[in-house]
């Protein structure tokens, strides 16, 4: 047990929580505006692949990160247009984007690098192993402020709770929702970029391995609130760090049982066993302006 609580595990918890936190914060804004965001996984993959590819060609991780963000915003705009303009089922669209982003990076890596889904190695000097961690944890208080202390945040929450009333008050429901979905594209993409050009030094096929869904779980576990969501991300990051540490150490508990803890906890919270959990009221409903 001595090895479980140590400086190393705190460090690795923070690092593992970072991509979750970035994606979850993006998802939080989308969902508070009333749009379901199952697409976080796909948005992270878009960011991870594009930033690794651009970094490879530009030999500069910051340009790579920018490229990743652009890709995330672009893919998010597909989700936004389908859900907001064409009133498509938000869960279905999100699922489609996840499938799309499983295929596109592999297809492109085959054409660009002749591989089956991975990008070339990026030299150590062209990685950004720390910046995204800082960005993620600085973002939490800023996003909290944005959500609760600015007119934009008020509008966003109003649109997610009662779009008709918000509309009557002169708020453009669609514009707020577009902004929120595109924001999630940018944030999730930074989370993805951290995986490929921060923690690792290349993109590999399906490298997010479900982190987008864990981020979604974290924001629900955090009850759609920034600070709680951050704590949830840290908890889930800790579960992952602990399961990595325990690999092969204890023959009695299989690591899989530790890995599924976040998912079980999320279901428990969603059922209302740990305090009331309430989703934004208009979550998942398309809004059509009355003529």
């Amino acid at each position, binding site marked *: 047990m001595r090895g479980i609580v140590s400086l190393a595990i705190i460090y690795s918890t923070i690092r593992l929580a970072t991509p979750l936190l970035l994606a979850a914060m993006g998802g939080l804004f989308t969902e508070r505006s009333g749009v*379901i965001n*199952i697409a976080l996984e796909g948005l992270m993959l878009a960011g991870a692949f594009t930033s690794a590819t651009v970094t490879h060609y530009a030999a500069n991780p910051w340009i790579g990160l920018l490229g990743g963000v652009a890709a995330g915003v672009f893919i998010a705009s*597909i989700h936004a*247009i*389908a859900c907001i303009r*064409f*009133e*498509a*089922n938000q*869960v*279905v*669209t999100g*699922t*489609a*984007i*996840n*499938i*799309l982003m*499983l*295929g*596109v990076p*592999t*297809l*492109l890596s*085959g*054409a660009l690098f002749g591989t*089956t*889904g991975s990008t070339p190695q990026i030299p150590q000097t062209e990685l950004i192993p720390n910046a995204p961690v800082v960005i993620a944890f600085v973002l939490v208080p800023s996003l909290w402020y944005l959500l609760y202390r600015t007119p934009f945040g008020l509008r966003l929450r109003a649109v997610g709770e009662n779009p008709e009333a918000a509309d009557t008050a002169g708020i453009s429901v669609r514009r707020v929702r577009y902004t929120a979905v595109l924001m999630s594209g940018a944030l999730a993409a930074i989370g993805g970029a951290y995986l490929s050009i921060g923690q690792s030094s290349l993109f590999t096929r399906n490298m997010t391995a*479900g982190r987008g*869904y864990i981020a*979604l*779980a974290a924001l*629900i576990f955090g009850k759609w609130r920034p600070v709680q969501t951050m704590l949830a991300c840290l908890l889930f990051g800790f579960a992952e760090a602990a399961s990595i540490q325990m690999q092969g150490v204890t023959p009695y508990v*299989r690591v*899989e*049982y530790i*890995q*599924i803890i976040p*998912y*079980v906890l*999320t*279901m428990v919270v*969603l*059922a*209302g066993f740990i305090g009331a959990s309430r*989703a934004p009221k208009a979550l998942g409903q398309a809004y059509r302006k009355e*003529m």
Partner: protein
Amino acid sequence: MKYFRHLLFPMIAIVAAFVVGAIVILLIGDDPIYTYQLLIGSALSWPDGIGYTLFYATPLIFTGLAVAVSLRCGLLNIGAEGQLTVAALATAWTGITFGNLPAWILIPLACMAAIAAGAVWAAVPGILKAKFGSHEVINTIMMNFIAAGVASALTQSYFKEPGDPILQTRPISVAAHIPRLGQLFSFIPERIPTNVAFVLALLACVFVYLFLWRTKWGYEIRATGENPKAAEYGGVSVRKQIVLAMAVSGGLAGMVAINEVLGYRYRYYQGFSPQYGFTGIAVALLGRNHPAGVLLAAMFFGALTRGGLFVDIFTENVSKDLVLVLQALVILFVAAEALFRGQFVKRRIAKGVKAS
């Protein structure tokens, strides 16, 4: 005319997906027409093309039906992936543990294990929705991951052959094998893996049709899906229907295990499903949540899966992942149907205004 309208939008969605796909192929630097010839053409040859298409379509019929049943009740089961995972492990467990039983008991028993495991795994989110109102989409996603974790842990701990580097169970008893169609019909070569599960899939289509449109339960499920408040007012127990629809949906998803474990691999193998559960969403949407549509859509995606292998080999740059991209595009275009409907909707609103 009625049938034509049902076919129209799915066809438009497919064409739109292929047009966008062609642009992607061009950007990658290959010839779209040649690529599509490979993709579609290779699926139509007899016996291999058609045989393999039916083989790849079989699991998609089951997951497509599963998603369709849930959607008819106003729920989205995106947990078919988890349901078919636990079902496959349960089926393999039955085939290993009761291996001494004769085939005529063992095979039905293993099939029942598949259906029961899938149904139970799907009923949990159903019950959580009915009792606590928690969203089935989130819970089914969570249970996908839990299924993968639990199946992996159980296989590691109890079912693996010692020293096997692959995460898979021991083989099931020979008595539990179901025959390939080639073993029953002499005009089909035996090398084609299409098996009796395909016949079960066709029967499942008939079952779902009869269940949804010819039974009281099915009627109540559809009533719940159309308008839960009206259904409740009309005396339907919405909560019961939610659990029932999820259980039926999960049972159908679980039947994938019959094809996979009893008919093809003869063991549980971790990661055997290339996202059948998620493709099922595409199949159900494209098939407009109707068994006949699901059957056609599953054949279509089965053909693409088969053709994708040829695209992988015979084109310069395009890989079989093109199929994933096309699939995603089809879902997007079907979901955003309003994109093609723009004129219709406007006209209908105009009519509505006049009528009132």
